[in-house]
């Protein structure tokens, strides 16, 4: 058995990049289909069987569209911002284990690209850094909707990072480690975390929706209020990169929720671990679309109210209670 080499890591990184980009593209298709079904429509139907090739058509459209840069914009920042979003989303994914370790061609492959022993914090930190994508995009484009979008980005991310961190603190205390792999092992010997920490699960979900900028919390680009927020002036592949980043973040949050709260990739009755986690991730992804189809946006002030007056106190209380229970 060989150890993983630098080459292996590079191969893995490229694989993750390719697979996640593909899944993100496929995610747009799924999203359109699911939303359509929930409104009793058909969704994309004409390009390919059941509209499956719509992804390719969208890709071609995005690539061939004019890459438009407004005259008064800060050109460099305007061009860099989407890359930041996509890059941070992918870097966050690199520290997330998705599958059980496996052996291929006689080479032992751990399923994680970078096994930092503070996995959770790293992912959170990277998603926090992801705030610069929308922020710089909004500030550089010399557009009032962009500025409003950027302001909302800063407010939203700062507030909800607090909630994510505090809500995850209680499970971290129970597991006693920051490594996502340890979380998975914990689930092997204990009931799923969601049954022991239901409050933390709900809080994490809410904050996750906010951090991935999904309805009901997609205030950064709420078309009814601020056109497209930070993405107002973007077109073509630069806009596409924001999109890919958003979907990669959705996948990250789904994976995190599956591993921390829903038992991860441990075998489930007769279902092997790798299938179980795919099902869990798929369910979390579906949940995001489901919520988008069902619930309206919240107002920005309600949103802040929710973060600071409801979720944060709840999270703190949850942490304190968990601490007391652990101590006793």
């Amino acid at each position, binding site marked *: 058995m060989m150890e993983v080499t630098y080459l292996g890591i590079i191969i893995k990184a490229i694989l993750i990049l390719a697979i996640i980009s593909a899944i993100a593209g496929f995610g747009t298709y799924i999203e359109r289909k*699911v939303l359509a*079904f*929930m*409104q*009793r*429509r*058909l969704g994309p*139907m004409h390009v390919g069987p059941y509209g499956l090739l719509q992804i390719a058509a969208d890709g071609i459209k995005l690539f061939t569209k004019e890459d438009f840069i407004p005259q008064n914009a800060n050109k460099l920042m305007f061009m860099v911002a989407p890359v930041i979003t996509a890059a941070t989303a992918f870097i966050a994914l690199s520290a997330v284990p998705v599958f059980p370790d496996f052996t291929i061609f006689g080479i032992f492959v751990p399923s994680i690209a970078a096994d930092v022993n503070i996995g959770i914090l790293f992912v959170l930190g990277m998603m926090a850094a992801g705030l610069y994508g929308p922020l710089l995009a909004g500030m550089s484009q010399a557009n009032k909707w962009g500025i409003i979008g950027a302001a909302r980005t800063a407010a939203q991310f700062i507030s909800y990072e607090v909630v994510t961190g505090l809500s995850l603190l209680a499970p971290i205390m129970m597991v006693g480690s920051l490594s996502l792999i340890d979380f998975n092992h914990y689930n092997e010997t204990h009931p799923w975390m969601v049954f022991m920490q239901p409050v933390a699960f709900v809080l994490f979900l809410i904050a996750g929706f906010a951090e991935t900028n999904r309805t009901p919390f997609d205030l950064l680009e709420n078309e009814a209020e601020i056109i497209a927020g930070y993405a107002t002036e973007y077109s073509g592949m630069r806009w596409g990169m924001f999109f890919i980043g958003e979907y990669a973040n959705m996948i990250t949050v789904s994976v995190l929720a599956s591993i921390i709260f829903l038992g991860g990739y441990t075998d489930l009755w007769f279902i092997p671990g790798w299938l179980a986690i795919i099902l869990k991730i798929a369910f979390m992804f579906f949940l995001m679309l*489901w*919520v988008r*189809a*069902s*619930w309206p946006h919240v107002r920005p002030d309600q949103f802040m109210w929710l973060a600071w007056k*409801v979720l944060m106190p709840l999270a703190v209380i949850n942490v304190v209670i968990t601490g007391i229970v652990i101590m006793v």
Partner: protein
Amino acid sequence: MSLEHFKNRNVGTQNYRMLDLDPTPVTGWGQFKQVVRRSLSLELLVGLKVTLREMLKALLFGKMHTTKYPFEKLPIGPRYRAIHEMKRLLESGHYRCIGCGLCEKICPADAIRMDTHYGENQRKEVSEYTINFGRCIFCGYCAEVCPELAIVHGGRYETASEQRASFSLFEDMLTPIDQLKSQREFPGYGSVSVNADTNIKKTPLAY
């Protein structure tokens, strides 16, 4: 439906369901209680249930609402005022227009331009008749004023084309001579749509 049925105009009110909404809380404590009650009674999940139900209905029972438009088309009402049609006389196949010029005169948008001459049999004949669809506001006056029911509005609403002229010439609007048999008479303004009986509903107002 019997007449009696129609006489009762208080439709709907019998089925109104009053929601027992609490008054909006003013004190902080009241708001707090409301938030807690609403969160614990899982009101949000109702919305999720509705969408899931619709999705299952759509997928399992085929209750999709989509019309695949270019392949399927919904019938449009007879009152719809789309691109004009010029009709022919059923017996002779000659166009109906007698060149009276009323439509040209009444057109508020000055869209119609026509020219006539005396034909061999001393009958006024249309030598030129065009409607400028860049100006036409589809008001329907021309069709209303026409004494011969010669110009009417048709149902052709897909008006995207490379040139406006594709619609606006007399020959284009005229019923093709080989389709004379299938030429449908304009039911006239105020006529009801074909499926009106199935669509009819009582006005849900008490007055």
